[in-house]
């Protein structure tokens, strides 16, 4: 199942012809007779959203918001030192809020606008022409209200930029995170979302499988986080001074909220309350369960204690890996994917990272980037019907892996280049990094004038 995002809403005013030309199979009006001719289709009553699907998608959209605040804010916040708790959570909340505003101004138009090519689209800026009657296509002949589709996609943009900030916490100026958010969304996120999820997008046309955002969200966020961490530099004292997580309790709470919200993220990506959403739901349970346990098992095998943070990290690795595969894998393929992602991410974060000279403070790359790549490539394997996936009998795994690999490589290149540009613009405008005294005192008191704990 691929995500077909038809930009054009079928409105009663005669835009229907254009819409039908864009995505003809998806647009048969439900009440039309099978024999209806194309001419008749243009005059047919516009498709009306099914209230069940609308209700499901509204719920899914709000669940994705739950992933950001409080989910990601608590998950990341608990991992920082107590003097940077508010700063970490505020950066996430404010970046997400800015992303929402940018999305309705020009983000939706650049990603899913009515005009465009395989790399970018345009039109519908400031949501021009969208009304409560506007609809967006799903993968079948159903439609959902366009405002819901816009909101759902908005939350994806918001969480992706918030994820990136995990690598730069405890030292980046608040103003710099805002400038970065604005530029990065515009030159990195919107084009990649268009290329992967929009019906004309280059990777969509190639047939890249990305159910809920393995490339667009996780590889994109992870690679951007890595580049941003390199440009920003290490935290003062890293890696010689201890920088222990200040509250793994809150990290565990955040992990749970992320897991719950992820059902909206994954199942909602089916765009309808149907069997595909159901498959995404069960996979989001079992891949995650496997991820949490296999991270802890790996710790034991390496001679350590199975840890709470290990469980949380494995849960996130499993969720990341199953994101592109949610509706593209059978449950047992998803279990393998979650387990493999947890083991690979463990070795990257615990062993490889220490040998590399950068400070990805909260392992945004180590888990979202690495786990995202495992998931994106793995989806090309577990899609196979031989492994219980939903692929057709003619599924060609080798060809699919080439497609998946090229989408991954292209995402890495665009993310890396775009992030460098966004970081240097933020540097020119804000100075990027707090001074040493501010960093030692903590960003909570210096940047926000508050303390998390009094």
């Amino acid at each position, binding site marked *: 199942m691929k995500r077909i995002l038809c930009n054009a809403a079928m409105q009663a005013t005669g835009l229907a012809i254009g819409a039908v030309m864009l995505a003809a199979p998806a647009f048969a009006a439900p009440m039309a007779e099978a024999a209806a001719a194309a001419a008749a289709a243009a005059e047919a009553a516009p498709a009306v959203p099914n209230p069940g699907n609308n209700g499901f998608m509204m719920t899914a959209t709000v669940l994705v918001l739950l992933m950001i605040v409080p989910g990601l804010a608590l998950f990341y916040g608990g991992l920082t030192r107590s003097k940077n708790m508010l700063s970490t959570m505020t950066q996430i909340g404010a970046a997400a809020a800015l992303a929402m505003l940018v999305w309705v101004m020009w983000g939706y138009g650049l990603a899913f606008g009515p005009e465009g090519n395989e790399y970018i689209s345009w039109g519908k800026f400031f949501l021009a022409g969208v009304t409560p009657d506007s609809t967006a296509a799903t993968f079948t002949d159903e439609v959902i209200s366009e405002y819901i589709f816009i909101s759902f996609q908005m939350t994806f943009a918001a969480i992706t930029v918030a994820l990136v900030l995990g690598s730069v916490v405890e030292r980046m100026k608040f103003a710099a995170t805002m400038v970065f958010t604005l530029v990065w969304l515009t030159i990195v996120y919107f084009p990649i979302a268009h290329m992967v999820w929009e019906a004309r997008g280059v990777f969509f046309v190639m047939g890249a499988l990305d159910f809920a955002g393995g490339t667009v969200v996780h590889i994109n966020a992870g690679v951007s986080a890595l580049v941003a961490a390199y440009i920003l530099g290490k935290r003062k004292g890293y*890696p010689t001074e201890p920088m*222990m997580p200040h509250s793994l309790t809150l990290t565990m709470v955040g992990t749970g909220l992320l897991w719950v919200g992820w059902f909206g993220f994954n199942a909602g990506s089916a765009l309808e309350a149907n069997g595909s959403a159901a498959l995404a739901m069960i996979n989001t349970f079992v891949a995650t369960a496997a991820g949490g346990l296999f991270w802890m098992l790996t710790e034991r095998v390496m001679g350590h204690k199975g840890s709470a943070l290990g469980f949380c990290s494995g849960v996130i690795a499993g969720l990341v890996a199953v994101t592109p595969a949610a509706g593209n894998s059978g449950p047992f393929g998803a279990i393998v994917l979650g387990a493999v992602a947890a083991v690979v991410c463990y070795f990257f974060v615990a062993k490889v*990272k220490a040998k590399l000279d950068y400070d990805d403070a909260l392992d945004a790359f180590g888990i979202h980037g690495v786990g995202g790549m495992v998931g994106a490539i793995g989806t090309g394997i577990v899609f196979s019907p031989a492994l219980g996936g939903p692929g057709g009998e003619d599924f060609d795994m080798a060809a699919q892996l080439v497609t998946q690999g090229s989408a991954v490589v292209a995402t890495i290149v665009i993310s890396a280049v775009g992030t460098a540009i966004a970081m240097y613009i933020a540097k020119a405008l804000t100075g990027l990094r707090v001074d040493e005294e501010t960093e030692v005192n903590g960003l909570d008191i210096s940047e926000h004038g508050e303390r998390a704990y009094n």
Partner: protein
Amino acid sequence: MKFIIAIIKPFKLDSVREALSGIGIAGLTVTEVKGFGRQKGQTEIYRGAEYSTNMLPKVKLEIAASDDIAAQVVETIQATANTGAIGDGKIFVLDLASATRIRTGESGETAL
């Protein structure tokens, strides 16, 4: 009068307190402390980043006792807090010059 300071393992606090009540000790002061001795520290690992802490949490008891009971107090703590492992702690005994009960102004052993 003697002033007895005992550093013990935190999990032994309740049994030591009970044993001391049993021999007639009517009050003591407890503080959570950190320190190091022969017991090696513990290692904490967060996503592969290892931090060894060489300060371990202990509990410090402070007890004022009359001369005739002081030896028994030391004996009781030693017997009760003993696990046989390194890190069980230490007991120090100091001479106590005076003691005053704030409410009544009594001083000396009657204030204990």
